[in-house]
């Protein structure tokens, strides 16, 4: 799949992700009937196990055949299936618009915002295909964008249209969006975590503690991993006063610090139970989506 910074073929992306489901990594809370296994045992037809009858159990759930064979009372235990609202929290700060077109005119690697859009739309499509309501929160100055979680047809298209209309700029705080997100839901945070990093990590930990399934998709561009050669005066798109020289002798230290920082982000996410996925923009978006959703499937299978 070819991708350019200017445009991304989302139609082809959705075709490549057709049939992809995005199950949760663990049992979900009881809720509206859905596709995810709920932590609550119920009386649905899908048998799970037998359990010894305890006082208070519904006598109608006693397996009479087993009682006749073993002269002991067992009840049939079944799993509940529930939906799992999924919220896509997307960072649209100025750092996501990297690299600008004058710096990537000859590169086939999409910029971070294009990659974030592709991941968001692809995972939203997977969640929607699973039957979950999918909502969208975009951290954007001055006013964010919000689409309520819906399961109806056209939700993914609405999300794509909303993201297409956004131009990342300025500084936007992602932590308040995470804090205001509904608890007991699946939160997908798609960001480069270069804004309010500490606040985001704290918010992720709190959301995780509140019962949400948190996944942090850390978007990284290859030019951030390996800056261009030469002598440059690098500046922060969100903090223009931060200007530092980028020279050949400073690249090694830069890479070392950047790598350590990313490892620290992953460690903090792992520590709080959140899932951390680093996506480099030169990775095909469909592959990245399958990697994110697939790891959840493996987790669910385990």
């Amino acid at each position, binding site marked *: 799949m070819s991708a350019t910074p200017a445009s991304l073929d989302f139609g082809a992306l959705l075709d490549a992700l057709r049939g992809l489901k995005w199950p949760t990594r663990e049992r979900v809370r009881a809720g509206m009937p859905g596709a995810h296994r709920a932590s609550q045992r119920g009386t649905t037809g899908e048998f799970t196990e037998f359990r010894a009858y305890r006082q208070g159990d519904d006598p109608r759930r006693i397996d009479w055949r087993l009682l006749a064979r073993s002269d002991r009372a067992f009840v049939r235990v079944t799993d509940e299936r529930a939906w799992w609202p999924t919220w896509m929290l997307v960072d649209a700060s100025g750092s996501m618009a990297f690299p600008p077109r004058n710096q990537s005119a000859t590169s086939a690697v999409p910029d971070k915002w294009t990659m974030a859009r592709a991941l968001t739309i692809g995972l939203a499509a997977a969640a929607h295909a699973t039957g979950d309501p999918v909502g969208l929160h975009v951290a954007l100055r001055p006013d964010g964008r919000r689409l309520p979680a819906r399961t109806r047809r056209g939700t993914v298209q609405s999300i794509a249209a909303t993201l297409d209309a956004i131009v990342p700029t300025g500084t936007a705080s992602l932590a308040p969006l995470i804090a205001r997100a509904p608890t007991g839901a699946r939160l997908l945070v798609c960001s480069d975590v270069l804004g309010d990093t500490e606040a985001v990590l704290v918010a992720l930990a709190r959301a995780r503690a509140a019962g949400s399934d948190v996944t942090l998709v850390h978007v990284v561009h290859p030019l951030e991993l390996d800056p261009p050669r030469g*002598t*440059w005066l690098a500046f*922060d798109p969100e903090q223009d006063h931060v200007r*530092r020289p980028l020279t050949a002798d400073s690249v090694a230290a830069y890479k070392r610090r950047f790598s350590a920082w990313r490892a620290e982000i992953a460690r903090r996410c792992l520590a709080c139970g959140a899932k951390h996925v680093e996506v480099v923009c030169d990775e095909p978006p469909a592959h990245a989506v399958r990697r994110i959703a697939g790891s959840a499937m493996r987790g669910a299978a385990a």
Partner: protein
Amino acid sequence: MSVVYPWLLGATLVSVAGIIAAHLLSVRRPPELMLPTVRFLDDRKVRAVARATRPSDRWLLLMRIAALMLAGLALAGMTWTGGRAATVSVVALDARDNAAVGDSLAWRRAIERAMRATGTESLPAMVVWSNGRVKQLNPGAAWDSVWPSNSGSLASALIAARRAAPLLAMRADSIALHVVSPLREDVTTAALESVRDAWPGRIGVLVVAPDSGRAADDSAGGDAVRRSEAGMRSRADVRSDIRDDVVVAAFARWGGEASTPARVVRGALSADDSAFAEAGGAMVHWPVARAGDAESERLPAVVANGVVLIGAGIERSSSVDSMGSAIAWWADGSPAATEQAYGEGCIRTVAFTAPGGDALLDASARGVLSALAAPCAAHGALAQPAFLSERQIEQLTGAGPLVSAEAFRAQASTSPTARWLLLAALALLIAEMIVRARPATAA
């Protein structure tokens, strides 16, 4: 090319070297790169000094060097000396009597003679004496441009020449000042002595006889010739009944051309003579003294036009006309010849006898003869002006060599070359600002 202040040129060269060094040690701001992860870079100084083997911003460097060199050359007083002459002349020309001279060739000859004497090849600067203005003499310049005036003085001409000297000093190594004038006494003023002392060198004096049209040498001898030749332009018609009258021969020898005719009558005047005088002629009645009528003088000398005529046989022959004005005098100051206006002309009465021998044919007789044969312009005009004495001329000439141009170069505050150099430097600085304001390209 020469400069007035070489040390300024040296300072300019040092500054140029500094600019080149600054371009070799340029402090450049690198091109900007947007990098969201800039926080992981070392927080160092954004600007860094880097040495290079080739200068940066070569166009800016060239423009800065050119502007600095042009300004330095202008301030150092640079002048082009490719055609510098050894000597340049300033001619102070007395134009007050130019109209009276009527022969511009005399002035031109005097100037050319002075230039040859000083080895000057280039045309001199002309200080027209009438009002002290400085005028450049062009080849073949019409002498009508030399305006006559009766004002001005030699002192003002010397001051004007001194003002012109700094600019001329750029063209030559020495400056020669020539004064071309009849040098009448009225050219002097009280300030002449102090003004003359302000000219640091010798002054060439060329005395020009206003009426003869010939230039004399810078000497008192020429002055004597000038005075004796004054007033010789006359044509006299002598009528005499005396056989071999020396008066006839004298006027025949010294008579010249004149616009007004003169008639000399040695006998009694007739009605025709009166009509001649009334029509504007100069009627000279020089009667022959009868025996016993003449009175011998203790000093037989008559002065006219500043020239003394001495000769045996000069005696008082008759009494002079008391109503007329004297044109010749005895040694005691009494009039020896008078002039009386008559109609458009005049009648002159000579009250002395002609000297014997060849006295009237000698050069000393020209003063008397010219006074008698001169036109009847006016009674006052017949009086001869006084001239500077030899001592005054020597004081004016002074001693020593010609003035070195170095003495005036420092006074040349601005020359045309300096102005153009400064303008070019200013234009280059403006261009440098425009080039510098353009955005920098990527490294």
